[in-house]
């Protein structure tokens, strides 16, 4: 009992060489066995913060195919390893239990969400897109000018997406004749 009493951190702090309790006085066997998640990760991906446009470098640590930590990238000449409260919370963003991971469907005049499997949802959306385009196709406008387009389909978004994604979005919609394609840059 006396040995365990003497091992109390506060006594070690007062009696030993660590009066401020920031070194050996507060370490235990359990402490010694701890390792940071960044050290035990299987791999690290070089990434970029998804919030504002500063473009801070992120290192995404992965263990067992799960994101276990996201830290600022010390090598980045833009951010020098720093992240703001949002960037620091981005592990929470990507691992949140609140994330939508299945398709939700609300039928016309419905009062609740329903489940829908992804392939079915994709088929339904493709059907609706083709139909809306057909139903609203304009070969000529009201002044008989050739416009070959649809004003029945619109899209908003892109500022949080990748360049490659924006490229495909604009390419597909342009080929379909949909012109009301916009994003946050207009807002």
């Amino acid at each position, binding site marked *: 009992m006396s040995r365990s009493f003497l091992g109390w951190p506060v006594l070690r702090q007062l009696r030993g060489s660590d009066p401020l309790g920031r070194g050996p006085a507060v370490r235990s066997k359990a402490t010694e066995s701890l390792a940071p998640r960044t050290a035990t990760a299987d791999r690290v991906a070089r*990434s970029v*913060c*998804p919030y*504002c*446009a*500063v*473009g801070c470098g992120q290192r995404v640590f992965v263990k067992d195919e799960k*994101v276990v930590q996201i830290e600022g*990238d*010390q090598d*980045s000449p*833009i951010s020098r390893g720093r992240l*703001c409260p*949002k960037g620091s*919370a981005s592990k929470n*963003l990507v691992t*949140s239990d*609140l*994330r*939508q*991971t299945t398709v*939700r*469907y*609300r039928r016309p*005049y*419905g009062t609740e969400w329903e489940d829908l*499997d*992804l392939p079915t949802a994709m088929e339904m959306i493709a059907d*609706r*897109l083709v139909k*809306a385009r057909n139903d609203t*196709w304009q070969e000529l406008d009201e002044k008989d000018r050739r*416009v*070959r387009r649809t*004003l029945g*389909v619109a*899209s*908003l978004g*892109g*500022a949080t*997406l*990748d*360049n*490659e*994604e*924006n*490229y*495909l979005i604009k*390419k*597909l919609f342009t*080929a379909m*004749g949909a*012109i*009301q*394609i916009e*994003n*946050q*840059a*207009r*807002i």
Partner: protein
Amino acid sequence: MAEAHPVGFQWVMEAKSRGAKVIHVDPRFTRTSAHADTFVPLRVGTDIAFLGGVINYVLQNELDFREYVVAYTNAPTIVSEQFRDTDDLDGLFSGFDPETRTYETASWQYDSQENDGAQREDHEMQRETASALQHETHGLSIDSEVRRDETLQHPNCVYQVLKRHFARYTPEMVALTCGVSEEDFLEVCKAWTENSGRERTTALVYSVGWTQHSVGVQYIRTGAILQLLLGNLGRPGGGIMALRGHASIQGSTDIPTLFNILPGYLPMPNAEQHTTLQEWVDAVRHPGAKGFWANAGAYGVNLLKAYWGDAATSENDFCFDYVPKITGDHGTYRTVLDMIDGKVKGYFLLGQNPAVGSAHGRAQRLGMANLDWLVVRDLFEIESATFWKNSPEVETGEIVPEECRTEVFLMPAASHVEKEGTFTQTQRVLQWREKAVEPPGDCRSELWFFYHLGRMVRERLAASTEEKDRPIQDLAWDYPVHGEHDEPSADAVLREINGYEIATGRPLSLFTEMKDDGSTLGGCWIYTGVYKDGVNQAARRKSRHEQDYVAAEWGWAWPANRRILYNRASADPDGKPWSDRKAYIWWDPDAGESGEWTGQDVPDFERTKPPSYRPPEGADGVAGIAGDDPFIMQGDGKGSLYVPQGLIDGPLPTHYEPVESPFRNPLYGQQANPTRKEYERDENRMNPSPPEEHSEVFPYVFTTSRLTEHHTAGGMSRYVEHLAELQPEMFVEVSPALAAQVGLEHNGWCHVVTARSAVEGRVHITDRLRPLRVEGRTVHQVWLPYHWGSGGIVTGDSANDLFGISLDPNVLIQESKVGTCDVRPGRRPRGQAMRDLVADHSARAGVASGAYPLVVTTGPGAASGGKSDGDPTPDPSSGETT
């Protein structure tokens, strides 16, 4: 900047630690103000008056960097004698047509070019199509040598025009208009000018709330004029830095998901002027004009080849005919009003939450409630996906779930760590992200969604014999896929964006390698080089410890990996650095065969064109740019202090009051921007401003901005535990004086009312907002964060519900950083009582039932100009709202 871009702000702190003086001009004291040497509060919406005052100070005291100004700007250029300024015409420029509220611009042109420049201008069409966005990058088209007076004495030279224009922006006028003391104002003038010139440079940093004004483009123009006069452009430590707000909003402008442009700022063709490939190309390159846009033919053909591959041949004009044509305003606000009118069937929302983030949330939600179908792709169940069950309009009875026909698909999206690809950050730097993990469940990338949607649409139309389906059948849509979910290759898409030689597949290294004969293809000419030497340059991660401060080997900046645009201006006309301290790019006569540009960055100039080069008679295109013309995208190679072409609202910035203001414009009879885009509809009532009566119903000015702990419409922050806990509740920030006047209690409730809606929040009384003295009376300003909605861990009213839709005429961006309002203690009413409150305020303000405030308030159009411009479309919900 410290609030919304905290990590970027470390560089301001770094500069401060090295002796830089930091000035913060803002309506509200923020974390940025706390770190600034000087904080100057001003009235929201008066930035042109403030900066115009600084310009006047520079010109009256001849403090401009004269050698730079004479050599590199259009200050010496002589403007047409027919030009009349706002000084002469009470706030209008010459050429105003009160019927269309646009300008005929012959009189704005340079001397002897009255017809050349103006014939390309159709301002009504340009306003509808936001064409200034193209002009911004396409520059002026100047066909011939312009008359110049390098002594700057000619009464019609730009320098003298500028001097007269800004002469009335005196320190007294600034104080009267902006509510800034003359002392504070002069301190800013002195600091700015003393820190500019040969040895020193000053940076101007703005956040994009600047763009959210009915005069947003002219705000930025005013900054550009000042920075040009002081020699702060194209030089290290100078420039105009737009702090953009989303991870890749720069990228989504360069490779646009925007209605009026194609990748690389090529215009979406319009049905009137661009009926053939040649017309479209000529509209961009302006045959005979100088500068790099002369090669637009190659840029356009390469895009068409990237879109339609083998089907695009020189015989069929590379399928130019497949590109749909625009005919007017197809912007997001027009489209939302069209949804209300039942003209739009389907709507895709891609990582965007307009129910909270766009101006006039009620109009957004009423629009979504009148679609056939809506596809929402997001990480969380955001408000734009749930408008049918828990929006404010469900509470007021305007949307009844059992009567709302919109079919909604909420499709879960992959996060930034679950896919690979590039973001383009705010300094034009592309950074490739590696994929860390697979997305969970049904979450998929946009790349996956659109690739497979396109594939399925093509399957459905494969057998069609209809001409209208040819562009889809012929589309080059053959991307390699990998993995369990058939994820398309982002790398392959980036290679297409970069461009390559079709026969060999060799990636192009620079846009100058693009051919207009169909032998190369490239999806976005300004991004050519991101795959230089077959290497993904955006993926470069050479540590900052292993390279100089320019850090040219971290990521890749467009164009050509240049970190400072127009950096030729960092050297004097002879090619020598302006000073040793500010050396950046210079001409080395001993380099190469007969001299080269060299320095710390990629020169923004032809590498071997000497400073002494003078174009031969009649030269056009790149050859027409002289060796001492740094602004190579402009037709005359000069920085534009005065802009004869391309802007809808005038060649010079002019102070107009915000559309909603408690004050009469102290400078001119014209109250607000006369050319702004308005949608005069019953659901889009604007609060009255002088000279209209009843502006006292909405006596306070309000503005909105971000909190550090939240992100725009909250879709990526209100659903995140840490962030929700840090900022848990919607609040309304007011000064102690306003709180006393209205009877508000700290931490109690209040609500803010406009002619559109009312929102409530907790009262936050602080000294960070100060009442200002403007035009001899006190004005109170109210501040609101705009992050909340009905979803997420923390909920609250959406500040953007308060705004109406009134747009800048150049780019069709809404005025959503300033409005007038009433503030009342307590919570807002619920249900029908809420609409009654708004209707009552509107009625008292005289804006109920089809009455719209005057737009033109001076000259012959003053009586009728604004009121005849209404949108004839009836408001389907007007029965419930009046």
